[in-house]
């Protein structure tokens, strides 16, 4: 099993991840737009100031300066809230960071550009403006981009470690604050595009990503108690995903449910639907996540409850698809 034992929490995952990366790689620059503290970039800022660059409260500048830093031979890791780093600076992400590498560009392998969006979806308490329910879909639409939604700090660390060695644009959803330790770092090996079976079963196949995988595992415990047969597949890489693994999982189940901390359009649910419909004749897919209305603010537990994404309601909704 890839899962850890008793549930514990990492209080500030990115502080360690960024510090460890920068001590190992002196060509990495952690960049901020006045949100270092709120993305938990503390030790790099204080102890490795040459590897920290704050561009001020200017997200377009964050990503365009980052693209320049990359062209200068360093590896920028631009950090900000997911809403701002995607919505507010989408053109800079696409044009400045995303057009220098891969098919259709002038360079097979161009500079490495990394952007991390913290507090994605409903993990930010300030409703609407601070919440990013569309970031995965936005970045997924950029040709050659990589999009990763890790479930915990182990996944997050591994995704960033992979990204620094890859040319082109990588967008990673970040975790901050008490982050549950879910994957066992001794057994889990991140591979770009790979999917991970966290629970093996029959009946209902649950496909989840990011916070959605945390929620899926909570619901899974309840489903198990209720005797509802199911499996859980964790899909950290939204793009480029190993499509055959998703297809194989989907066609091995009677029903598929996708769970994501993102709108149910353009993200994981759409991805799974596209893969299965391209083949044809697959199982019905029920997409769970943020609906087509503005989510409330508050704690994530409160918002989940309001949107029917708390463990109990999720379990009931999942069990309901079998009927």
């Amino acid at each position, binding site marked *: 099993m890839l899962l850890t034992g008793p549930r514990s929490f990492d209080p500030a995952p990115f502080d360690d991840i960024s510090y460890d990366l920068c001590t190992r790689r002196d060509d990495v620059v952690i960049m901020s737009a006045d949100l270092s503290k709120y993305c938990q970039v503390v030790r790099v800022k204080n102890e490795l100031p040459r590897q920290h660059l704050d561009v001020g409260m200017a997200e377009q500048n964050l990503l365009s300066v980052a693209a320049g*830093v990359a062209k200068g031979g360093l590896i920028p890791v631009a950090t900000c809230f997911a809403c701002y780093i995607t919505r507010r600076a989408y053109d800079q992400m696409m044009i400045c960071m995303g057009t*220098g590498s891969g098919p259709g560009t002038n360079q097979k392998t161009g500079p490495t550009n990394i952007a991390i969006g913290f507090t994605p979806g409903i993990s930010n308490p300030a409703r609407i403006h601070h919440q990013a329910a569309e970031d995965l879909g936005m970045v997924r639409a950029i040709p050659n981009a990589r999009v990763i939604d890790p479930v915990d700090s182990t996944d997050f660390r591994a995704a960033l470690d992979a990204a620094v060695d890859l040319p082109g644009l990588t967008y990673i959803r970040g975790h901050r604050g008490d982050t549950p330790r879910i994957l066992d770092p001794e057994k889990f090996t991140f591979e770009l595009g790979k999917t991970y079976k966290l629970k093996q079963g029959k009946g209902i196949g649950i496909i989840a990503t990011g916070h959605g995988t945390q929620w899926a595992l909570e619901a899974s415990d309840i489903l198990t108690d209720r005797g509802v047969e199911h499996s859980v597949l964790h899909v950290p890489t939204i793009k480029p995903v190993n499509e055959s693994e998703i297809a194989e999982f989907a066609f091995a189940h009677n029903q598929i449910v996708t769970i994501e901390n993102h709108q149910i359009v353009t993200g994981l649910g759409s991805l799974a639907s596209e893969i299965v419909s391209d083949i044809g004749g697959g199982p019905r897919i029920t997409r769970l996540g943020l609906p087509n209305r503005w989510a409330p603010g508050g704690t994530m537990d409160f918002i989940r409850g309001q949107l029917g994404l708390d463990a109990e309601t999720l379990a009931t909704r999942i069990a309901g698809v079998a009927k």
Partner: protein
Amino acid sequence: MRRNQSILDLEIIAVKIRRNVLEICRQRGGYAAQGVALADVTAALYFDEMRPDSEGWFHDRFVLSNGHDAIMTYGALAETGHYTIEQLRTYNEDGSQVDQSPIEGQLGFEITAGSLGQGPSQAAGLAWALRQQGSDKRVYCLFSDGELQEGNVWEAAMFAAHQKLDNLCFIVDNNDMQASGRAVDVLGVEPVPEKFEAFGCKTRRITGTDMAELLDTFDEARATKGQPYVMICDTRLWDGIDCLQQALPMAHYTAKAAVDWDEGLAEITATLSALEARRDG
């Protein structure tokens, strides 16, 4: 003056760049008026200011922010031999590798430059990264006055000044012409030097067509410590070719049928002959 080119030699190169611009744009139209107007800046930049490296390219880095002005780089790189004029004549042709508004990684172009206002920040990031690694390379970034209407430019100016990027030189093509007409009518950008000064940059306003003044300005930029330098060039479209001045009102993009290219080239040939006679005689 950096590479000990004579002013007359550079003026001759500028005329040849104008000739190249016309040769390229007469095929299918293009941003000819901008290329012609920037020919002196281009000659000074590519043939005196930027140092060559040992691999047949440049030691210093040039970031073009507005894709339209790519024509000036093409005009220069035809003279250096990095492109042949035959290659460049495919500019604006379906399937051509010579993009009218180039994409990152094409020879001569550091960034994808068509989405305006994004060059200055990338140049600033590049300058920061080079300084961080102890490099003596300098970074030059050309952008237009129309781009001053983009907020990203001012974010870049604030950042570059805050970081004291004295290895960075912004060149503003202050030609008072944008897609819909004169900048002064669309959305006034003046006073340009005062604005950059207020952001913490050192500035100088020049015509952009006087070679001695251009070289002196580049010298001053290099001697400036602790702040980025902004040279504001008050170019006017078609500057350098008198007979095409009547095309000015339609000059943002010059269609193939809009001007008499032969007439323009004849004037250039005469100018070139006169300058070469002065040099040789």
